[in-house]
């Protein structure tokens, strides 16, 4: 029997929903639990309704559960909206002094604000009282809680928050019928981080030296993280005047020989597409993160979607090779970021990573990243002693289509790059023969790239009847859906893509041919991966789609699969 709990914190922006949620997640991770947490918030600085869901289990989890065991309601709306999501025996912790007149056995009155004022001297710590109360109900290790708070809040504020949390903790423990006692799950230490943090750490580990971007939900925290660590890691982060400038600066930086990246969401990426083509034509290494949110136009700024796959696949005019990764886990976020920098420099073409709001802001526990395993491969570099002599040619024809790179400032080379079609020396041309040769040269790189595709993950029996296919952020939910099906007599397989281009044709074809039925599960309206699969393999599949701006849960996928039967 697994030990598992689902917690939810609800409230308005400004009430500390995120900090209580994150502290709860961290508390459970430090208690040896596997944790998954996601966030739902509105595009506003104050007010509205936000929630943070945390699932902690002694088994590995990468998806949320819809039923809630403990709801921490920081306002009335949270009770009204989420009361029906309570699991059997689930409880709501709320401030009965602020919200009098509510009735129900599931209601646990912990006067957050009153206790905060009384015990810690300031009602502002109401959310810490609520945190303490939730941990009181599960019988959390009080010393560990105090350690967590003094680590999070510095100085005097730490001591006050400890008092506030302890007041909540003791109060909650008085509700005898509501206790949901748990114990330490183990002694393994795991990191708890979200997709954006994992990508930012990956960029630093990969030796990225330059980033230019324009803040946009959901990638802003990547930019902020890198900026805050830039001095320490020999990096420059330039807040550009717009996304057009951001990507063109990134190309300029890549041209000089530093590892360079940008990040944006779909709307900003719309402005970047011309610059993407510039990187392709000049064969300049750049890494681009596109954190998708629902579009078109401004869409739903703080929600999630996988609606930009086809856009990213075809972005910019003309034809050129590119690589597209879609991290499925936080480990992918870290590892594929490093791989992206190696591939972009080795093949001298743009590498894109698609994430989305859900991946960017969801927290996962994972084993510590092993930095000793990071390799840095800068690809083919010009060396005068190894060259055939003569004038350096930036776009020299080679077997692989990859020409040795030199950088401005090299005493033995002048580097000429051009966005016009050009000859080997980089000067603009108009003749048909050179154009053909240069197109062939650039596309020759696909041969090499196809040999090192990140193959899809597969879970399930070799002869699975029903195959579920997904890409990117939906990995955890689809996997849990397949597992649940199989626990109840189903024979379900799950194939998940972390690289979308070059497309893993063989792996997808083979898996689909074995299965009786295939469903492609995507957070979009038109079934973009299903379309790509049809294009690349000639095979058709059913689609399970969701385009309301909210992520999938296993419950939703299972209900859809039941309908399809």
């Amino acid at each position, binding site marked *: 029997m697994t030990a598992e709990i689902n917690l939810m914190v609800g409230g308005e922006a400004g009430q500390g929903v995120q900090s209580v949620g994150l502290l709860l997640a961290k508390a459970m991770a*430090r208690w040896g639990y596997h944790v998954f947490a996601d966030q739902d918030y509105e595009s506003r600085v104050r007010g509205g309704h936000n929630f943070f869901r945390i699932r902690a289990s002694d088994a590995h989890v990468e998806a949320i559960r819809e039923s809630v065991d403990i709801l921490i309601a920081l306002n009335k709306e949270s009770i009204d909206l989420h009361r029906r999501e309570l699991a059997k025996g689930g409880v709501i912790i709320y401030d009965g002094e602020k919200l009098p007149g509510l009735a129900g056995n599931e209601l646990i009155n912990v006067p957050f604000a009153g206790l905060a004022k009384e015990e810690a001297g300031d009602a502002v710590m109401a959310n810490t009282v609520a945190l303490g109360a939730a941990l009181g109900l599960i019988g959390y290790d009080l010393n560990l809680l105090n350690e967590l708070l003094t680590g999070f809040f510095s100085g005097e504020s730490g001591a006050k928050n400890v008092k506030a949390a302890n007041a909540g903790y003791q109060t909650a423990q008085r509700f005898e019928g509501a206790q949901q006692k748990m114990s330490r799950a183990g002694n393994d230490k795991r990191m708890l981080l979200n997709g954006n943090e994992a990508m930012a750490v990956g960029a630093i580990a990969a030796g990225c030296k330059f980033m230019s971007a324009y803040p946009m939900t959901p990638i802003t925290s990547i930019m902020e993280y890198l900026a805050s660590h830039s001095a320490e890691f020999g990096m420059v982060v330039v807040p550009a*005047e*717009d996304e057009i400038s951001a990507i*063109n600066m990134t190309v300029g930086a890549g041209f000089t020989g530093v590892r360079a990246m940008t990040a944006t969401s779909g709307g900003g990426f719309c402005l970047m597409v011309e610059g993407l083509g510039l990187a392709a034509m000049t064969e300049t290494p750049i890494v681009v993160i596109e954190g998708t949110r629902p579009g078109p136009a401004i869409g739903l700024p703080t929600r999630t979607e996988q609606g930009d796959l086809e856009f990213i696949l075809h972005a910019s005019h003309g034809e050129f090779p590119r690589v597209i990764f879609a991290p499925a886990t936080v480990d992918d976020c870290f590892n594929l970021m490093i791989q992206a920098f190696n591939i972009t420099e080795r093949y001298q073409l743009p590498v894109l990573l698609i994430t989305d709001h859900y991946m960017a802001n969801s927290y996962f526990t994972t084993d510590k990243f092993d930095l000793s395993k990071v390799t840095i491969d800068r690809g083919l570099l010009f060396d005068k002693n190894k060259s055939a002599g003569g004038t350096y040619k930036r776009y020299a024809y080679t077997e692989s289509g990859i020409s040795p790179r030199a950088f401005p*400032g090299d005493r033995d080379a*002048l580097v000429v790059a051009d966005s016009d079609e050009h000859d080997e020396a980089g000067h603009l041309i108009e003749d048909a023969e050179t154009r053909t040769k240069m197109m062939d040269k650039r596309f020759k790189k696909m041969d090499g790239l196809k040999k090192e595709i990140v193959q899809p993950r597969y879970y399930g029996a070799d002869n699975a009847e029903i195959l579920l296919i997904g890409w990117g952020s939906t990995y955890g939910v689809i996997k849990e859906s397949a597992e649940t099906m199989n626990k109840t007599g189903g024979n379900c397989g799950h194939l998940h893509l972390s690289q979308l281009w070059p497309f893993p044709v063989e792996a997808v074809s083979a898996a689909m041919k074995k299965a009786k039925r295939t469903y492609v599960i995507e957070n979009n309206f038109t079934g973009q991966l299903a379309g790509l699969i049809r294009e690349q393999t000639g095979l058709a599949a059913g689609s399970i789609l969701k385009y309301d701006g909210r992520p999938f849960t296993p419950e939703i996928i299972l209900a859809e699969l039941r309908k399809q039967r």
Partner: protein
Amino acid sequence: MTVKMEDYNGLTPSWCPGCGNFGILAAVKKALVELNIDPHDLLLVSGIGQAGKLPHYTKGNVFNSLHGRPMPPAVAAKICNRDLKVIAISGDGDGYGEGGNHFIHAARRNHDITYLVHDNQIYGLTKGQTSPTSDFGFVTKTTPQGAPPPFNPMGIAIAAGATLVARSFAGDIEHLSSMIKEGINHKGFALIDILQPCVSFNHKNTYAWYKERVYKLDADASYNPSDKFAAFKKAQEWGEHIPMGVFYREEKPVYESEFPALEKGTLVSQALESMKAEKLLAEFF
């Protein structure tokens, strides 16, 4: 080494005979030779248009970027490798139309680069349409009713925060090369707006038209280029008399000096050290 004129020989230009670009090319080369800049230390970043071709007709490291976008790669290259002399090259359509926003913000941030704008008040490469600097009422293929009021590069550069704002004329190579030298020697963002006759498509603003009107600011000893308001006033002058020379000059910290990461040396010279990232992981436990 001593740099010679031959060191800056490039491909043969494809410009129209008599094009103002020839004068600009000659002045650029003259300035680079006189400053004894090794082509290996030079990065020319150009946009698109007839001006954008200039780097191919001389020597150096070259990044021929998109239309309107020489500024972002130029400033990024300077941030990454401040040992390079970076010159961005635009036309009036490229720099003041497509790239207007980049121009304003690069001036504001005061990157240490030189910005040459070949300003012929017309679109040449697309054969004769109005540009942002076309004179008010100027009739072109796309403005049969006459052009709207022009963009004021000098005034905008001063307002945006450029620390060297100058104008010269393609028909006066001596003066132009001296302005380019000023720009390269200036620590900060230097705009050199270059009046350039287009012999094929602009039959109003010709060599003769400019020659009759231009006058040199330094001929007036009382003109003080550190006086921002006087410079701004001078920037409004256009028509019968057109000032050239340094309108405005100011010493201000350059953008590249603001980054602690650059205190240890250029970004291109810094090592890639994965293991150093280990210390970032503690906060996730």
